[in-house]
């Protein structure tokens, strides 16, 4: 008679409200942000496209993110990315799907994210460079390398700025890893894009 425990409730795309249709520039901002959030996740947790596709399957979003190529094209849609070839227009539904996928993955790795933020607090308190903590050092290196490799302005961006960006994204990831993460990320994206 014992029934299996249900998987955690899945936040549906409809739960992410849209009060206005973003214009192309706003969508560009959204794409760039989402790509950065995923980049931070990759750098910290080592998740790759496999895990992202699995997340898409868990969330029943295969229709929007079917395979590696589709995912690559979605992420390539960020205006920050190098090269224009294969760039695809990201529509709102796809943006929502990426929000759900990002937060799903952040939730799966919440413990690690939390540990990284705790370390960052500790290092800052002791006036030490975050790099000196192995977890943060690896994260920052991975983030910087990937950023420089993939982004158009990668070679011209100073390491300090990238470090700061990486750390801000790390703290953001923590907030996205909570139950209300998808709502937080979505509202942040559309509100920021609107300004």
């Amino acid at each position, binding site marked *: *008679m*014992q*029934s299996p*425990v*249900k998987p955690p*409730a899945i*936040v549906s795309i409809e*739960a*992410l*409200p849209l*009060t*206005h249709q973003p214009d192309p*520039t706003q969508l*560009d*901002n959204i794409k*760039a*942000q989402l790509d*950065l959030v995923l980049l931070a996740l990759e750098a910290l947790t080592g998740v790759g496209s496999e895990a992202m596709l699995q997340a898409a399957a868990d969330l029943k979003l295969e229709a929007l993110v079917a395979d590696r190529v589709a995912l690559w094209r979605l992420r390539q849609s960020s*205006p*920050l990315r190098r090269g224009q070839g294969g760039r695809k227009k990201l529509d709102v539904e796809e943006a929502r799907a990426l929000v759900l996928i990002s937060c799903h993955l952040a939730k799966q790795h919440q413990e690690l994210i939390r540990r990284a*933020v*705790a370390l*960052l*607090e500790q290092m*800052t308190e002791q*006036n030490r*460079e*975050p790099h000196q903590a192995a977890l943060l050092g690896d994260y920052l290196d991975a983030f910087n390398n990937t950023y420089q490799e993939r*982004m*158009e*302005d990668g070679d*011209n*961006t*100073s390491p*300090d*700025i990238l*470090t*700061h*960006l990486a*750390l*801000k*994204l790390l*703290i*953001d990831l*923590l*907030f*996205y890893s*909570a*139950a*209300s993460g998808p*709502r*937080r*990320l979505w*509202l*942040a994206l559309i*509100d*920021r*894009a*609107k*300004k």
Partner: protein
Amino acid sequence: MSLSVLRRYTPPTCTLEIMGSQSPLSRWMGQPVLKQLRFQLNLDDPKLPEDKWVTLRGDRAQLDALCEVVTTYVQQFLEGVPELADGRGAVSNGSPIALVPTLTAQASTLQSVPSNSAGILLQPRGLLSHELVLGELATEETGSVTHLSALQLFDLANALDEYTTEVVALPTLQPAQSSWLKRSPAWAQIAAVTLVVVGLSTSIAKLWDGSYTAKNAAPTTSQGASSSDQKIATQLPPAAMNEQPAPLALPNQKLPPAPPIGSTGSPAPGLPNGLKPQIVAPLPSMKQSTTGAGSPVPADSSRDGFAAKTRQDTTANELRVAKSQPLPAPLAGELKPELADDAPARRAAAGAASRGADSLAANESTAQNGTPFDTIPQVAEARRYFQGRWTSPQGLTQVLEYRLVIGANGSLQQIIPLGLTSGDYIDRTGIPLVGEPFVSPLNSKRNATIRLVLSPDGRVQTFLERVE
């Protein structure tokens, strides 16, 4: 009259307790009537020395004010991702990564920002530290300000989020609050409640049908986070990418004030002792209740004989008064279409909407027989079902808890034992088999989840967790 803890949220670095007391009227009504909702928030990060722990206490309105401040602040913080756009500014002066408090310049501008009516305010002190101005919550022990680390802010935001999603199901009880109501005669109080409900139902209906926009959003007088730097920082013209990076601006250092939601807390009516709010909002609206606005929360009163009678007696008055009574000022503000395209307002509305949407009313309390929370009759039916059957097996020392999912036709769809012991004892609980008729059919709902708590002393409790 003792306060008992109704809910407790325990993320790693804080503990939030929601308390209430049972009114003496409970005796006459045969069920507990809760009032005087209070909260206690312990900022008890185990990493900090105990003398740095802070305990905040307050009432329902103050808790709602705190919720709104924290939710809005977190959202603004998240919107402040430094971007590598043309607005790229310096990593702030001072420390190489500006994670330590170096924002004195910004702090002075922030202090001029109006806080909400409870005087609660959050402001950034670098990426990793946040200053919580306690306002009304300040005491001699706490001082006027306390600091939150990133993790503490995260935990606090989550605890408050959980509270706001669950509290929808709890009745609004803040008898000591609005003094203008206390001075008013009974009919005025009831009329005021009606007005609030009508107003909220209207706004909620708009939220519900998805047509909410900035124009009908929650009220706020604060400025949107629309400083020109932010505008620049959020645009990403690819052409700018090749330029030498200028110093990176940190948009989140210029947070606008949190919307003064305290002002919207005040229209929530004070209620005479023990008299439950007579609210006729339909159940779906309850899910969408704008908790952020300190709205009165409908309690189901259909089985509440005493209060129902009061309501009948006063209906005529109510209607007459509803026409003639001018809107209380804050409420009028709430109903007035906000024409300015105000980001925080819209965000608050969107937040409230999705808060409602992503977790439905969870009804529970530690109050025995929790009947004030039986928002659907099936909860009481389930309780009666087990009260007739549950006898504690010999040797059982633990409480058994189960989550029961009930289908539209009232049959049992799923049984989820909570904890190992509950799984072991499942065959002795008297829970019907999956698919068997159990309670009366749900009224136009797809399913409902009820939590069943069976105590070794023979007590049976049921709580509504969600309705879909």
